[in-house]
């Protein structure tokens, strides 16, 4: 299954025409066109709920389309399942790593295509083949090791190795860089360019504009389930791209700077104080103070201890050293319940695994934390719930505005807003936000940043974690820099992204 050696580089290998998909009450895709050309990296851009995920699911056979056509190599296809899409040469790496952590790396890469001998799986051949495939990506992972023993970033690369294992002619990468650090992104891009030069058509979805401009040749922009247009990347500058994605909402980005400036208040009471807090081996004992009305940013690479520290402060993990004080009083936060009782809220970076309760409605998800704090015997009155749900769905602009939908049906950004609202309903005094804007689009990101700034202005303490330094720099009053589980610096809000980068990298500091 190699790409036909051809001069027909302009003929698309995949062509979606007038594709429409209806969901109950929503038109997820409306007459959308998409062309993927061999030897090109094509970026798919759009806000949350613009239809990116739906389009990918149509292309990979997960969803059946209601109207329109999908042609692969000029042949019209009707995918009734992911398998047919794969057989047509379309491979996908999804946003959240969809592999089996309990199987070995080799088994994951070749799952469903295991080399067989006399009807049994030939494990030696499998490991050899997997090692070859990993070698092509310059990855030195033991194919016989268990996938779950590797960090998420490596698992992602294994997922890409799995996708390349089928010699796909079309490779779809859905937010592949969300969990990768800069080196790994560079590595991924090298691999992507190699695949592109070999004639693979790549569809790349990412909310990192830098990356999109660095790697893509062409882009298709979606908004509200419709296609805004298709542009060569070189001819569409950032402002024009954001305008195409957001329509009229661009000005939101500018407003944040003002709100942040307003929230930078003088020293106030310490909401949460941590002295020598640590958990071996991920977090070396350190001090952290968070004041009322203050946004404290945590900057650091993946694995620097930023998430681990947040979990300690919320009682999600037990510290091995140190004491915590809440409002100056010693407090043992032995469990999330205890932390919640002290008015602390925590939104995890792992939205699907540690955030939403997928099968429950938006409504139930919104009141879960408050209800859990009240205990089962004191249910919220229906009227009170209705009021809370209405108010917060409106305030955070959660769409679609139907509280009875299962929350798993929402786009990532809207799920994130549901989680934020779940905690805001408990009226916390300290809000720990771990990567609240990961994997969501510019518009929702701006909304969330604005919300955080506004909360701090109203007196809430916020601990804000993000892999995006410009976001941390923009929103924080004070930034703690972590490296290898240590707190290496504390800087003010005037610190530039370049300085932060230097601190994180440790150049000149060591």
């Amino acid at each position, binding site marked *: 299954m190699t790409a036909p050696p051809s001069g027909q580089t302009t003929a698309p290998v995949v062509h979606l025409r*007038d594709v429409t998909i209806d969901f109950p009450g929503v038109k997820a895709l409306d007459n959308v066109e998409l062309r993927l050309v061999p030897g090109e990296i094509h970026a798919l851009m759009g806000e949350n709920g613009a239809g990116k995920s739906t389009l990918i699911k149509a292309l990979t056979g997960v969803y059946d389309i209601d109207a329109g056509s999908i042609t692969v190599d000029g042949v019209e296809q009707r995918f009734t399942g992911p398998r047919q899409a794969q057989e047509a040469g379309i491979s996908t790496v999804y946003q959240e790593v969809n592999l089996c952590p309990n199987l070995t790396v080799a088994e994951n890469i070749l799952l469903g295509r295991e080399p067989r001998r006399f009807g049994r799986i030939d494990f030696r051949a499998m490991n050899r083949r997997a090692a070859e495939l990993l070698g092509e990506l310059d990855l030195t992972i033991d194919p016989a090791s268990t996938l779950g023993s590797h960090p998420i970033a490596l698992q992602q690369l294994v997922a890409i190795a799995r996708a390349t294992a089928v010699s796909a002619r079309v490779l779809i990468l859905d937010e592949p860089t969300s969990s990768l650090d800069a080196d790994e992104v560079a590595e991924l891009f090298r691999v992507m360019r190699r695949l592109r030069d070999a004639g693979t058509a790549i569809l790349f979805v990412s909310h990192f504009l830098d990356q999109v401009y660095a790697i893509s040749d062409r882009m298709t922009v979606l908004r509200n389930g419709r296609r805004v247009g298709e542009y060569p990347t070189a001819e569409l500058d950032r402002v024009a791209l954001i305008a195409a994605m957001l329509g009229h909402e661009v000005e939101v980005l500018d407003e944040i700077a003002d709100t942040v400036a307003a929230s930078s208040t003088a020293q106030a009471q310490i909401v949460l104080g941590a002295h020598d807090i640590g958990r071996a081996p991920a977090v070396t004992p350190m001090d952290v103070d968070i004041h009322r009305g203050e946004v404290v940013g945590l900057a650091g690479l993946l694995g620097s201890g930023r998430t681990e520290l947040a979990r300690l402060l919320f009682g999600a993990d037990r510290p091995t050293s140190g004491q915590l004080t809440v409002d100056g009083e010693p407090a043992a936060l032995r*469990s*999330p319940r205890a932390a919640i009782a002290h008015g602390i809220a925590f939104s995890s970076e792992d939205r699907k695994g540690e955030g939403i309760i997928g*099968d*429950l409605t938006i409504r139930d998800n919104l009141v*879960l934390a408050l209800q*859990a704090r009240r*205990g089962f015997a004191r249910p919220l009155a229906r009227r009170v719930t209705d009021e809370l749900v209405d108010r917060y769905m409106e305030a955070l602009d959660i769409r679609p505005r139907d509280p009875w939908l299962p929350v798993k049906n929402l786009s990532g950004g809207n799920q994130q807003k549901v989680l934020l609202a779940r905690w805001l309903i408990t009226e916390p005094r300290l809000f720990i936000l771990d990567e609240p804007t990961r994997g969501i689009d510019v518009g929702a990101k701006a909304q969330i940043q604005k919300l955080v700034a506004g909360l701090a202005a109203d007196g809430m303490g916020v601990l804000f974690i993000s892999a995006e330094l410009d976001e941390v720099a923009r929103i924080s009053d004070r930034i703690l820099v972590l490296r290898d589980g240590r707190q290496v610096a504390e800087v003010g809000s005037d610190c530039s992204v370049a300085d932060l980068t230097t601190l994180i990298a440790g150049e000149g500091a060591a």
Partner: protein
Amino acid sequence: MIKKLTASPLLWPALALVALLVVNVVLTPSFLSIRVQDGHLFGSLIDILRNGAPTMLVALGMTLVIASRGIDLSVGAVVAVSGALACAHVAAAADPASVGTVLTAMAIALGVAVALGLWNGTLVSVFGVQPIIATLVLMTAGRGIALLITDGQIVTTASAPFKVLGAGYAAGLPVAILVSLSVFALVGLLVRRTALGMLLESVGINPEASRLAGVRHRSIVFAVYVFSALCAGIAGLMIASNISAADANNAGLWIEMDAILAVVIGGTSLLGGRFSLTGTILGALIIQTLTTTVYTAGITPETTLVFKALVVIAVCLLQAPKFRALLTRRRSRTRPGSGPSGSEKAAQPSEPSGGVSATAMATK
């Protein structure tokens, strides 16, 4: 309205139950008739309810356990232990016919049942043992305990008050039915009028997210195992009371399977999460009606199990989203208007989104 009805997950079990009843009426025209004798109601329907009462109770406890993402295989053993303890106490008492003796016997039996539930709950929620393994321990050991209590004999009792729970009547209806339905009603009120149901579903769907949201996940999981054992204990008393004897070998044998089946037929997923108590009642009734049908239809004992299996497969298939999607997809494929360039109107026929939602469900 009709669409809402057909979308209800309870539709298929309800239809299956009706179909079974119709089959019975065809086989035995007098099937639905209920007569009054000595102020008590008699008839096949009453028999089904009474004989199904223990399974219904066990299935109720099982529903909550399954909703929490667990399973309780030990209920059959708890049934045997409970019945054995009660009968042994009554048989050994100086005055077996006194109400006090019987109440003491029942209290002992239920107390031990709760203790067994505490054991299961501790293993699962405190030590994190996988539910199927944790309860397998008691499934095996429990029957052994019951045999020890009865010395391997069938312990018979001759106590009128003891017979009331399983064979007695109150207000014209068998006491067993009244007990089972009351427990159902109480639990229904408890889980839906308080937030317990929502919190339980939350724990079953995503335990870690629930913990981080401050839900007392351990207490909830612990409680459902205790409650399941209590239900099994009451069911054990009913069975022993009905026959005035404790048969440690056969009391409650395979009742865990019937209970799990009732839960699944009732539409509660074995993956945990959302549950339906009404569905479980329907499921338990279907299983009991099936057993009765087998007798009235004169199906030979050799083929009984096969017959049961066929009906169960049919009901489960009709409920499976993928199977239903296959049916709907076949219909939507042949629907008119799938012309060349699907205009917007063609994409929204009078049955909007039926095909899409079904296929979307199937792929989740």
